[in-house]
């Protein structure tokens, strides 16, 4: 394991782990994985301070937020550069684009706000972002489309009165952007609640509960199309449950949690498994066996080309050692 550390690594934690003889063999291996993955992720940071998804020079806001979260404790200089990049990337109206060069606001505004919520500074940037999120809504929020979905277009079963957030302005509400927006606003309004933000959060929560699949969990949006129930997705379910972590444990939430626990045991994909761990940890479910499986899949991180996936895996493997980036304390 020691031979895979890049020459010239500046990660001080690596050396600390190397010298720490109190760890058992298994946990030492896990620590080694963490440290090397950190270095791999840090080495892929762009000059701008952001991260692209893979090998390009085009920074993605999603990859940047997740990587900054992952390195915040261990490599604060890298995270600091990405914070500056994020602040520069914010548009005047408070939103963020999906990637560098794009000129439209997107769902990544929620993720960026989650990241900035963990800091005491940048109140103005957070304020503008929250204002944009409160105003943003899925296209079905418009009375005409609500009327159409209620009367003329019944192939997709959902309650259009309960709308959330879109991936991109001009499209309908979907589970993942709605869940991240709910988390971001819940975090932002911990000490700062207003009637408007509470109403918007409630609408988003109601939308998530309305779109849940029959057997628990969430697909990407609707749960029934042409009368046929859609299967749940692990990632969407994990993120939706994170948004509902402080809500009353209704049957929908209990069924979804049960579905995710069962599903997570068989997942062999880094991204989905990492989100399962991040979610189940918040619900105080045992995750050690999942973390061990994830550590094996991640290896030293070099084979994971998607930086957002690698960052999410690092966050999942660190659950319990750091402040959870998506925890809601209300």
């Amino acid at each position, binding site marked *: 394991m020691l031979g895979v550390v890049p020459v010239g690594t500046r990660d001080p934690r690596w050396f600390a782990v190397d010298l720490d003889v109190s760890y058992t063999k298994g946990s030492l291996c896990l620590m080694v994985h963490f440290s090397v993955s950190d270095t791999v992720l840090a080495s892929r940071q762009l000059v701008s301070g952001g991260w692209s998804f893979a090998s390009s020079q085009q920074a993605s806001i999603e990859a940047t937020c997740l990587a900054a979260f992952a390195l915040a404790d261990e490599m604060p200089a890298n995270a600091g550069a990405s914070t500056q990049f994020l602040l520069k990337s914010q548009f005047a109206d408070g939103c963020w684009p999906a990637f560098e060069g794009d000129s439209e606001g997107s769902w990544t505004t929620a993720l960026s706000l989650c990241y900035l919520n963990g800091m005491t500074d940048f109140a103005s940037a957070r304020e503008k972002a929250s204002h944009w999120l409160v105003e943003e809504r899925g296209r079905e929020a418009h009375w005409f489309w609500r009327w159409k979905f209620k009367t003329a277009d019944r192939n997709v079963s959902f309650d259009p009165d309960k709308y959330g957030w879109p991936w991109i302005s001009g499209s309908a509400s*979907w589970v993942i952007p709605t869940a991240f927006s709910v988390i971001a606003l819940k975090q932002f309004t911990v000490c700062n609640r207003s009637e408007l933000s509470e109403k918007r959060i409630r609408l988003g929560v109601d939308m998530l509960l309305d779109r849940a699949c029959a057997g628990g969990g969430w697909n990407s949006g609707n749960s029934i199309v042409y009368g046929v129930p859609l299967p749940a997705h692990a990632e969407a379910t994990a993120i939706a449950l994170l948004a509902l972590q402080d809500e009353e444990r209704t049957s929908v939430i209990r069924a979804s949690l049960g579905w995710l626990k069962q599903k997570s045991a068989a997942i062999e994909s880094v991204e989905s498994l990492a989100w399962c761990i991040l979610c189940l940890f918040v619900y105080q479910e045992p995750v050690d066996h999942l973390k061990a499986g994830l550590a094996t899949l991640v290896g030293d991180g070099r084979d994971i080309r998607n930086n957002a996936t690698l960052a999410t895996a690092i966050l999942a493997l660190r659950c319990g050692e750091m402040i959870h980036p998506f925890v809601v304390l209300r």
Partner: protein
Amino acid sequence: MNIDRRRFVGSAAGITATTGVAADWFWPKHSVSYQRPRSFVAILNATEYSEKVEALLMDGLRLFRLNLNGRRVLLKPNLVEDLPGPVNTNADLIGAAARCFLRLGAAKVVVGEGPGHQRDTELVVQAANLKPHLADRRIHFVDLNRDELARVKLKARYSGLGELWLPRTVLDSDFIVSMPKVKTHHWAGVTLSLKNMFGIVPGMKYGWPKNLLHWHGIHKCILDICATVPIHFVIADGITAMEGNGPLQGTARDLGKIVVADDPVAADATCARLMGLDPLRVQHLSDGGRFLGNLNANRIMMLGERVEPPARPFSVLPDFEYLIAPTR
């Protein structure tokens, strides 16, 4: 001169209609045409997915005398979800196609896909069992949902989108091969090589699913995307196809065919006929037949087997029963 209201309304309607037709004539909705005098299509018989598929496909490809020397080939399969059943283009066929194109002289073969529903692309690649085929170092996989993007002006204006951000991997390819799974589709009627190109639209910009395209009209967006990113070749997986409530919840239908073509409209028209559907009634095929390729059977040269409609047409949802071709 007195003009009563009825005459005025009638005249106005006539002028509007004439103007519309004239505008379409003088200012067509597409600025390109990929139609050629003749298109070539081959139907290959294959009853199962096995190692024999590669030899069969190679024989089929040789009929087209493709010049691929030094070219960068992009295979665009249809990988949508980690679901059981014939949801995704079969991995054995994708792997066989990649190896065939390398043998035909391609400098590089990339398999690229941006799944429309499932954000975890690795999960879809695992479920499709594509990983063993990617072990060949000469075959690369690119997640088109998260590739570097470039803003591209669309070469048709059916959807009104004007422009789209598209993946560099797609734009830098010399030879694009659409590899659809032959399926019915609950919004578009059918999903074949043209509809398959929705998968090049990046999720990182447009989300999962690429809902903006639905709001702007599925058929219209198909036309705009395929006008902008021309498909050079088609290998359609119809060995086990899907009927009913496709593209995810339908039922398997053994068709036993691989359709290979140098024209996406001709390929899709042939697939539709094999499904017992009338291609002229599929909106994006009917419109695409004006500029994306040949729809008319007279301009489609069959290399080998002729198109035989099935004894029983593919089942479709009630909204699409009008697609079923009249029996002779």
